[in-house]
């Protein structure tokens, strides 16, 4: 199963308004559980975060779950899946750099607190270095892309729990 298939599956799951979805074939298994809170009208809801388990598919070995989220840059659909997090997405096509130079530490790591405007990474395109900044203050929960990896438009880069 390819990334885009999984991505389409997730779209379909979201659209179908199901609560839990699991898919298993051969040595491949996919489970999706959706937060009860995905429906804003619901009052009592523990935030069961989106949970994705993929095993046995080498194309997903690393990083764990990079591409799986639909590309919805500039929109906040992510909230429908992970209401308490926001995702920083690639605004351009290019190469992701976690640090300003090879020998220096990365701009941010998991657990770091960032302010609005904190530089999170660089995306290089056409020899131009584009600094990507946090839009809101919060804590870095996950980094979804590895250093020097190519990213497409709208690809999720960081998950940040807002303050």
């Amino acid at each position, binding site marked *: 199963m390819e990334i885009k298939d999984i991505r389409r599956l997730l779209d379909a799951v979201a659209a179908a308004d199901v609560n839990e979805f699991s898919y298993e074939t051969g040595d491949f298994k996919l489970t999706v559980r959706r937060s009860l809170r995905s429906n804003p009208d619901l009052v009592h809801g523990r935030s069961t975060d989106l949970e994705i388990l993929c095993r046995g598919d080498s194309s997903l070995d690393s990083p764990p779950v990079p591409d799986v989220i639909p590309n919805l*840059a500039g929109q906040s659909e992510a909230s429908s899946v992970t209401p308490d997090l926001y995702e920083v997405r690639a605004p351009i*096509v290019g190469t992701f750099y976690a640090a300003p130079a090879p020998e220096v530490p990365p701009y941010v790591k998991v657990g770091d607190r960032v302010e609005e405007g904190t530089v999170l990474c660089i995306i290089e395109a*056409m020899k131009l270095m584009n600094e990507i900044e946090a839009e809101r203050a919060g804590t870095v929960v996950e980094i979804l892309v590895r250093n020097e990896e190519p990213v497409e438009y709208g690809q999720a880069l960081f998950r940040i729990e807002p303050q």
Partner: protein
Amino acid sequence: MFKKILIANRGEVALRILRAARELGIQVVVAYSQSDESSLPVLLADEAICIGPAPASKSYLNVRNLLSAAILTGAEAIHPGYGFLAENAEFAQKCEEHNLVFIGPRPESISQIGDKANARRLALQAGVSVAPGSDPFAGIEEAYSIAESIGYPVMLKASAGGGGRGMRVVHSPSDLRRQVQRAQEEARASFGNPELYMERLIEEPKHVEIQVFGDGQGEVVHFFERDCSIQRRYQKVLEEAPSTLSAEVLSPVAKAAVRLAHYVKYRGAGTCEFLIDREGRFYFSEMNTRIQVEHPVTEMVTGFDLVQEQFRVAAGLGLSLKQGQIKTSGHAIEVRVNAEDPDSDFRPCPGTITDLHWPGGPGIRVDSHVYAGYRIPPDYDSLIAKIIAWAPTRDEAIPRLRRALEETVIDGVKTSIPFHLRVLDNAFYQRGAIFTDFVGRRME
């Protein structure tokens, strides 16, 4: 030959390019906008890369993202299709600067020829006749005097024009000022350039275009003509090859097109458009520096794959054939099936295709990127399919195409097929009495 190319386009032409590449053993990267994620070219691609959100200005016209996508995926060349960046000299230039082959003419050819007024001058220098007319004019007083010297009726055209935008017919001096103003506004809105020129109006002409191919060194071949006289608001509706005109009329037109392409040392596929009046006099009107929507009719009568030929020329392999090897056989007619409602002034009808069945059998070709369940995004043009019929003669191609259109099932959206059937059933159409005023004069 290239190992991997990137397609910087969408829809049926992206699929057309993908097919040509695949048959040549070339890997295909499809660059797509977010609203095209589940389109057929993306699903069939070896790799696909999202280059922006739905609006074309942010995706299919986003030069930086397209170039990054090509570089990141290791593509050696970019095929721009038609529309979007296909005739953008700056994009072609940027490709060269990044060591990417732009599958099309050299950037300087695009800018030379893309300026319609300049293309007129080049044609004259190459000894190709153009409609009596002017260089671009500056003020309205100059317009009056040029129109007087050319003789009314005149046609206003935008220097940066294309697709009928900025075009206006002026029948008398009393109407000139108003039409110049309108045409300037339209040209500014469409192309960011209000410059106009004018030509004597050719009355009831045929629109005939010559498919040319150059190797960039001055060698040029042509693939004969297409007749695109059936138009609605300057948009082609149905195209065919060969034209119903005689070889005596057409042969000099093809020679003129080759002369012009040779003069500019043209590289790759191009189309020289001509108007031919009832006396058989022909006038160059413009050159399109890309593959045309209607190229399949030429493929069906000559048997050659023009997109594969684009790849060969772009890869530096030169033209694969000599003029003497190019013959036409039979007759081909293409209709452009649009998702639009011919009963409501051809209003576009985006939506989801709920059921789909294509025609088949002898002589039928379908080029389409849609499938059952596909949602036609509202962001782009409404072309959803080209259906082409070939038969040994025009009289056999017409009922064959008719039969194919009757077999076609496209549920969920309205299409232009009922209109195409009316064209095919029209007695004037059937006997080949087709001029650019056909739709207005014979059908409305």
